[in-house]
């Protein structure tokens, strides 16, 4: 499908735009060591628990971070409980809102520095941290700040109160943004929080802790404990936690659900996905290409709602793939701090190995593997160029399992019915996209898709006012919008 025949005209895209390096130069402060933020104070944590966080684009160590022990987790939950019962639940909504507005403004003021830290710690391009992660994190705090004194309108005619202490465990793909998604609604509704960032990306959460100090947030309202699985297990399993909010893999989600089964704890789970992007022949094809790119190569494909399955109407499949490959050949992979980088580094060696393994599995199962980019793939860190797997079938591993990388699996269909059937043929149900210029078809297909989010003629478009969440193995509960308040409220 991607073989160039001799006579066919081709475009010289890769070398067409030579750009000098344009790195983001704002100085950032990254300490040598981080611990925990408990009761409004920073704690060093235990020396013997230290682990490293690296810059995946260079493999350099950025900082050493302490993993919280059960005792430290206990201390954090205690301080959250005390802050809830003595201060935060008694405070008026308008007052809580003020704190949220302050956090949002402080985030805005520090946005450039936060973007530069996030890009180092995560590997994602500065273009995304600057234009997506940090602005959206601010927007979430602004949005939920507005709800803090209007909760009676979120549940008209009913009385609602906060749950208590929320244990929040967040992933490494959008570290600060996921912290904002979790913290903003919890705080707006009067809950206090113990947050655990992902072990590979703790730095912006610690910067956020500094902001909590700077805005004089009452001690204990937000506590942050670092660490990996053991810390997370200690946190969600703690007896005095009222609510567990988790974003991460379906596998870990299952472990947590088993752990908290039979307790009074409420839960929301935002888990994996295998999003389908359905492109009909009557779509605006060049624009659908752009959306497909946003759907799978945004954030190196480290997006739970990534559109990792591309379902093409057979009559345009070849044409569309050629357009898609041409566009991919203009994507720049390289130094994530360079403002022109479109595709950055894979966050960790573990994830890098996972992605390579899936590409190999795809190859073995008969896929035609195509990779492209405008610039050479760097050898300094963990980089995977945009990858397209063609010739897959519905039963193949890469068409079913979440890869969580810049790997697009291409399938075809003949009729809208077949498109819906194939799109719904997944254990997951987080997000999907439909591309057609025919509105009646868009609506019909969108309503038949089994997914929490369906985008029409677009993909990976986020807004704090819009609820986000999945069905089936992609989890339950919603974040964002009015629906994002409900999981944090006890309704009388």
């Amino acid at each position, binding site marked *: 499908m991607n073989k160039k025949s001799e006579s066919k005209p081709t475009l010289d895209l890769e070398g067409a735009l030579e750009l000098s390096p344009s790195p983001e130069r704002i100085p950032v402060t990254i300490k040598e060591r981080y611990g925990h933020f408990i009761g409004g104070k920073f704690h060093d944590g235990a020396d013997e628990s230290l682990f490293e966080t690296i810059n995946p684009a260079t493999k350099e160590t950025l900082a050493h971070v302490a993993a919280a022990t059960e005792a430290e987790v206990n201390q954090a939950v205690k301080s959250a409980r005390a802050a809830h019962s003595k201060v935060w639940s008694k405070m008026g909504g308008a007052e809580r809102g003020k704190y949220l507005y302050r956090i949002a403004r402080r985030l805005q003021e520090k946005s450039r520095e936060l973007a530069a830290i996030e890009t180092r710690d995560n590997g994602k391009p500065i273009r995304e941290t600057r234009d997506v992660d940090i602005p959206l994190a601010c927007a979430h705090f602004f949005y939920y700040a507005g709800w803090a004194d209007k909760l009676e309108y979120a549940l008209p005619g009913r009385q609602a109160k906060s749950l208590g202490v929320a244990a929040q465990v967040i992933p490494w793909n959008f570290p600060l943004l996921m912290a904002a998604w979790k913290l903003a609604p919890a705080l707006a509704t009067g809950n206090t929080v113990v947050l655990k960032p992902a072990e590979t990306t703790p730095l912006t959460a610690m910067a956020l802790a500094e902001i909590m100090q700077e805005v004089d947030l009452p001690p204990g309202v937000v506590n942050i404990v670092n660490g990996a699985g053991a810390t997370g297990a200690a946190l969600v399993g703690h007896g005095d936690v009222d609510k567990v909010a988790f974003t991460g893999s379906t596998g870990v989600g299952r472990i947590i659900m088993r752990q908290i089964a039979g307790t009074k704890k409420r839960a929301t789970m935002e888990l994996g996905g295998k999003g389908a992007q359905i492109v009909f022949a009557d779509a605006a094809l060049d*624009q659908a290409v752009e959306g497909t790119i946003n759907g799978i190569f945004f954030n190196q494909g480290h997006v739970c709602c990534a559109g990792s399955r591309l379902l093409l109407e057979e009559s345009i499949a070849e044409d569309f793939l050629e357009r898609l490959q041409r566009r991919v050949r203009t994507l720049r992979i390289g130094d994530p701090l360079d403002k022109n980088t479109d595709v950055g580094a894979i966050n960790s060696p573990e994830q890098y190995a996972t992605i390579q393994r899936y590409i190999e599995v795809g190859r073995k199962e008969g896929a035609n593997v195509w990779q492209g980019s405008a610039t050479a793939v760097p050898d300094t860190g963990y980089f995977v160029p945009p990858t397209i797997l063609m010739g897959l079938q519905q039963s193949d591993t890469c068409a079913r399992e979440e890869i969580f990388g810049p790997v697009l699996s291409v399938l075809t269909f003949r009729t809208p019915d077949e498109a819906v059937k194939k799109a719904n043929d997944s254990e997951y149900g987080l997000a999907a996209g439909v591309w057609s210029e025919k509105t009646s078809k868009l609506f019909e297909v969108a309503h038949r898709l089994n997914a929490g989010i369906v985008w029409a003629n677009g993909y990976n478009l986020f807004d704090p006012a819009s609820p986000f969440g999945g069905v089936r193995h992609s989890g339950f509960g919603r974040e964002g919008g009015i629906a994002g308040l409900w999981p944090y409220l006890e309704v009388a």
Partner: protein
Amino acid sequence: MARTFHPADARRWRAARVDNAAVAQRVARVRTRSIKTESKLRLLKLALSMVDLTTLEGQDTPDKVQSLCRKAMHPFLEQPDLPHTAAVCVYPNMVPVAVESVRGSGVKVAAVATGFPSGQIPVPLKIEEVKRTVAMGADEIDMVIDRGAFLAGEDQKVFEEIAMVKEACGKARLKVILETGELGTLDNVAAASRLAIAAGADFIKTSTGKISPAATMEVTLVMLEAIREHYLETGVMIGMKPAGGIRTAKQALHYLVMVAETLGKAWMSPEWFRFGASSLVNDLLHQIARREDGHYASPRRFSVD
């Protein structure tokens, strides 16, 4: 021989679909490209070499046109190594003056014709105007399409007019102005681009500069995509000229990024891409001098034309 019109082709052109929101998103992404240091200087000079330095005023005089030609040949005497602009663009009556002024310099003479800017004159007069303009020495003809006919669905009329003008051009290269500011939708821009290319355009051009909005990146992207489609189907390259409203070097650089990422290296040349502009030249010079000198010069350092 003039090309012939087939209704089936017209149906295909008109079926072109463009999603405005996604075009805007793509353009916004192009605008985030950060062009610095060496690459900036290189692209600034390239942009300078792509300008069709234009004067299209009722008050144009031979002196004014001579002055424009001098600027086109030697944009900035302090830096004699800078490229000359691609062309000067004038009204037909000014062609002889322009031809005389730029002789031997490599600067082309482009002339607007076909009842520019509205095109509301009888077709035989348009053909006659083109023939005479070419006879006076114009290297390039910038014609306007009959927007009224296009909007009324008379594709055959629009097509045949372009085809006749193309024949009348002889060796002169034909740029077809769609006047996108009057076409209303990007779907129409896509359709008109395909129609003009099929009818024989060597270049497609956004605007006369007399209508607002003139060139936009959104419109230009849709036209570049039409050029790409034609090239991939036929192997024939078509040129692109956004005109009007491009005043700053930064804008020009973003256009070049879009060309590189849509059509590739072959189009990064004055042979295939032009800017219809006048004040753009001085901003390009200002930025080039900034890179050479390390600081911004007074704008008065550069002549008004």
